[in-house]
């Protein structure tokens, strides 16, 4: 039943968006974590989203008559990977800092606060949109259940 799979689709999107919100929180929390050397410094993390292709595989295998067992047009979202940003990190001259190296430099993460704020707003809006979709689907299903009463 196709209304049923909306819950899966929106659910996968909601979990992907919450992973994205998690990385944003982690990035913003660590935006000012100083490190003594370039390889110890925190790097900004970003999730990579991808469409779930499982349905395509199902279609190729189990379907010889032009029908598939469940709705074939539904694709959810998955978090493929969480990558660390390669953007240049900040090197600040702070000789009085306890973590300063021999030349007086401290290393700060390559977190872009503006970017992270945008990500935060975008992911919370997308999350909200998917919650709305789920709610509408629930109403639609409940309505169909009253058919003929």
């Amino acid at each position, binding site marked *: *039943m*196709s*209304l049923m*799979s*909306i819950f899966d*689709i*929106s659910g*996968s*999107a909601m979990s*992907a*968006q919450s992973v*994205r919100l998690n990385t944003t929180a982690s990035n913003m929390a660590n935006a000012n974590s100083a490190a003594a050397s370039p390889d110890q410094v925190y790097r900004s993390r970003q999730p*990579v*989203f*991808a*469409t779930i292709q499982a349905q395509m595989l199902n*279609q*190729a295998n189990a*379907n*010889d*008559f*032009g*029908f*598939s067992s*469940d*709705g*074939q*047009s*539904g*694709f*959810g*979202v998955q978090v493929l990977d969480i990558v660390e940003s390669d953007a240049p990190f900040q090197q600040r001259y702070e000789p009085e800092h306890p973590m300063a190296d021999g030349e007086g430099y401290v290393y700060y993460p390559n977190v872009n606060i503006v970017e992270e704020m945008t990500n935060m707003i*975008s*992911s919370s*809006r*997308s999350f909200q*949109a*998917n919650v*709305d*979709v789920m709610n*509408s*689907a629930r*109403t*639609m299903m409940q*309505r*169909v259940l*009253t*058919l*003929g009463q």
Partner: protein
Amino acid sequence: MAISFNNALGVHEQALLLRSQRSQVIATNIANSDTPGYKARDLDFASVLKQRMGLDAGAMTLRTSNARHIGDPTVSLGNGPVGEDALMYRTPLQPSLDGNTVDEQLENANFALNALEHQASFQFLNGKFSGMMKALRGE
């Protein structure tokens, strides 16, 4: 005269099914609104419904034996799901950097409209059923 549900319920049975299938397609679009390279899709409700109802008799179609064959735009028999080829790609109003063509406002509006039309189809179908019930009771 045999009572046929196909004739009794008219277009509304198919319409209700198609509406719920379309809501799934639009939900997929909204779910993938942040996926790089995802192309938004939708189905042409009028033409698919026409095909389902067999009103499109003049159209020449290829005979296929597998869903992956070319030329099977919809599963035109029965209540099966919409074929992959019946789903068309949306023309984006604004190009985006990551190749995603989902316009969230547009999809939200479409989803809301589709939910409303789903309710309308449901009301019609429910009306058919209550009409039949009334006829059966004969009160």
